[in-house]
């Protein structure tokens, strides 16, 4: 068993879990934060993307123990109270989601993309989202959402 202490969405958490516990299982099952999803087994779909110390990471490809001591942000932690994050707002305004399953990972991925890159072109946004698969939207409105959020976020 590994004692995993970390900060998740600003809250300190501490649990004893088996060493082989994946970060995504820790988030979904131990912490019951089910907004982070699992859509594949090979680290490609990106439904599980969270931020670990400000970097986007596929939570299905990291052990909880590896993330011990880190600051984790999940989809549940990006709004400021009732005030949605600009990326969340942009997805809503631009119809950047349909079934909603890929959305948390897509939003988390897009936030890091915009935070780390200024003046993104449409093509750069498309390439920057290659780690996230959406089956519903055809990406058109996701790209529009990211463009709109980038404006808002000063990107």
């Amino acid at each position, binding site marked *: 068993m590994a004692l995993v202490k970390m900060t998740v969405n600003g809250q300190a958490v501490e649990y004893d879990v088996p060493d082989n516990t994946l970060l995504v299982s820790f988030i979904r099952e131990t912490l019951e934060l089910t907004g982070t999803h699992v859509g594949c087994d090979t680290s490609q779909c990106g439904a599980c993307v969270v931020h670990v110390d400000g970097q986007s990471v596929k939570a299905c490809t990291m052990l909880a123990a590896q993330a011990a001591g880190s600051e984790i942000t999940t989809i549940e932690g990006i709004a400021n109270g009732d005030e949605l994050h600009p990326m969340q707002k942009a997805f809503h305004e631009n119809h950047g989601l349909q079934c909603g399953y890929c959305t948390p990972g897509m939003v988390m991925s897009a936030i890091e993309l915009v935070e780390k890159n200024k003046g993104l072109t449409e093509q750069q946004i*498309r390439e920057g989202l290659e780690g996230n698969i*959406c089956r519903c939207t055809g990406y058109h409105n996701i790209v529009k959402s990211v463009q709109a959020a980038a404006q808002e976020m000063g990107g």
Partner: protein
Amino acid sequence: MPEGTMNQGIGASVRRKEDKKFITGKGRYTDDINRNGQLYAYFIRSDVAHANIKNINVNAAAKCEGVVAVYTGEDIAADGIGGPICGWTPTNRDGSAPKEPPHPLLAVGKVRYVGDHIAVVIAESLEAAQAASEKIVIDLDNLPAVVDPATAIGNTQIHDEMDDNVYFDWELGDETATADALGGADKVIELTVTNNRVIPNAIEPRAAVAEYDEIEDRYTLYTSSQNPHLTRLVMAAFMMQIPESKLHVVAPDVGGGFGSKIYIYPEEAVCTWAAKKLRKPVKWTADRTQAFLGDAHGRDHVNKVKLGLDKNNKIVGLRVDTIANLGAYLSAFSMVTPTYLHGTLLSGCYDIPAIYTNVKGVCTTTVNVDAYRGAGRPEATYLLERTMDYAARQIGMDPAEFRRINFIPKDAFPYQTAVALQYDIGDYEPALDKAMEMIDYANFGSRQAEAAKRGKYRGIGLSSYIEACGIAPSAVVGTLGARVGLYESAVVRVDPTGTISVFTGAHSHGQGHDTTFAQIVADKLGVPIDSIDIVHGDTDRIPFGMGTYGSRSLAVGGTAISKAVDKVIEKGKIIAAHMMEAAETDLEFKDGKFTVAGTDKEKSFGEIALSAYVPHNFPHDRLEPGLEETAFYDPLNFTYPAGTHICEVEIDPATGVVDIVDWAACDDFGNLINPMIVEGQVHGGIAQGVGQALLENAHYNEDGQLLTASYMDYCMPRADNLPSLKIDYTVTACTHNDLGVKGCGEAGAIASPPAVINAIVDALSVVGVTDMSMPATTEKIWRAINDATAKAAE
């Protein structure tokens, strides 16, 4: 419209009500649901495509730590539990019934595809179940795999009930008239068109949580389903043989379906059965590889097409001979997809006097093939639009012009096709014109020349499609072999304070019903959209529903809601007449107010709602308290969305890479309730069609092993595979539903594959390429260029 309802009614791009939970991570999908004391199921699947089961030894597995039970097909059979059934069966050419071999939940005697369920381990944790599953010893006697549909007939027998591997042999149209038409044609264009096999890949893998309440003797099943009522009906009546009322099915938030979540699969049935046997909740969630192996695949047709033209290049006849691969077992819509949803669409947008089609549905040792976004209509559109393009090239005519001269003229509606359907309304030229304008078709030549200077081949491809949507009329589908009716239900409940709950049998898994349906109600009742809740996905709360597929939710389910709202208004008028002491015939309802004609008397909708529940002086002999109405809507006909999509590509001959540089779509969906949502549906459909045309393919090797069983090898379209898309509309309102709507969910997936392939063939025509199969991979394109160049050099 009163304040608060502005820009929320029909035709407004209202932002979706359902978004908030999804963008904040508060969606509730099946795998998010956990019940106290739940057990976990892990299914052991066949590693081989076809084998006799000699022995299954579960003893070691049963003794593993944490294991509660291990079951095989014999345990299921001992309890008399049946397997999934086929919901719609065509009749064979010779009048006989098709073959429907049984599909045991867990294999009995034989396995028939890689992924076939052999046994299930149920344990206290998933880890324990999985670990124990590795201790099961399965002794199989391998048989030859049958993978290629073209050679499946008469090959190694897969089911005892079917000696030739043919489920059905069906026909539609007039064979003699078609033969005569082709015989007398000026030219006959022949083409073999293959529609490749694809895998739906909803991003949420299927999942089920089943529990049994001993006191109530009642099951509850949470499942990622597109149609919880059908799941309840089939599971209760055909599989579990329990009263339907004893099974409560909930389809909570569902992460995409695209057809694959229509069917009832073995896993949810086994979990439900085991929940009673073990008196504990049982949970199962697929991983992605299980989804690849076990979810119903789509398409997989091989068509031989003959198209006859007269000397003016007008089509005189069409014959299509199709082999449809249905896989190892049948599921709900396996047989209707390649027949009634395919053969009936072979007239497309064109005036074709004689059509005949023969379809053979064959069995192979692959997972079952069933409806996938578009279901039959993409296959029909693909073969027709490929053939139209091929023919235009053969006769040296502009493909747009060739389509135009063969379109059904707008004054010919209602138009009776040669393949059973009667199109109520349509006008195809304006959509073609608009799409051509959007993509600047006229100046394509200069763009092509400019690309050539850069060493690129540029091509443009059209696809003018039609689809039959709003899959419904019970009377029609009943005569065509459907075993269910295809109406939809709605209950509109007005609360005393005027808030409204709408209970609909349609299920939303991305389509935005919470918003679109609320807009219909808001528009009709003149109430704020926020006062309306849409409830779906729960058999205990909804009267009955046929679910969401076939672009039917709005045309059928939306119309049912509209009709229930009409009944609410009618009752409201009676109440208002009573309150205002006026004749019911003098009552009018507009903008949320009941008024008495010719007077200034009025009552708001809210006042009427309250009054309905405070009926102090109602004449109870003719006016019941309460304000709640139910409607079941069964339409008169399908709806017929149509339109033209145009794709422009640029190909790098050095590598074979195809870049989609532009896309214009002009669709006629009738009236639009929420254009933003409609546009999103079109985007998504196009992406799936582009995926099929360029990237996606279910690849079974000759041993029947599925080699594309993860995203490492199955190529899903990503953001950088797609361009920005131009979408516009023409409108001819549907003539037979109140809303004038036709449905938009599948159009993109139907229209897009031929547009892509036609554009590629156009681009490669400079080197003499005339055909290209899907997916048009970079290697295929490179090879086609090489082969054509070599041929030209000879």
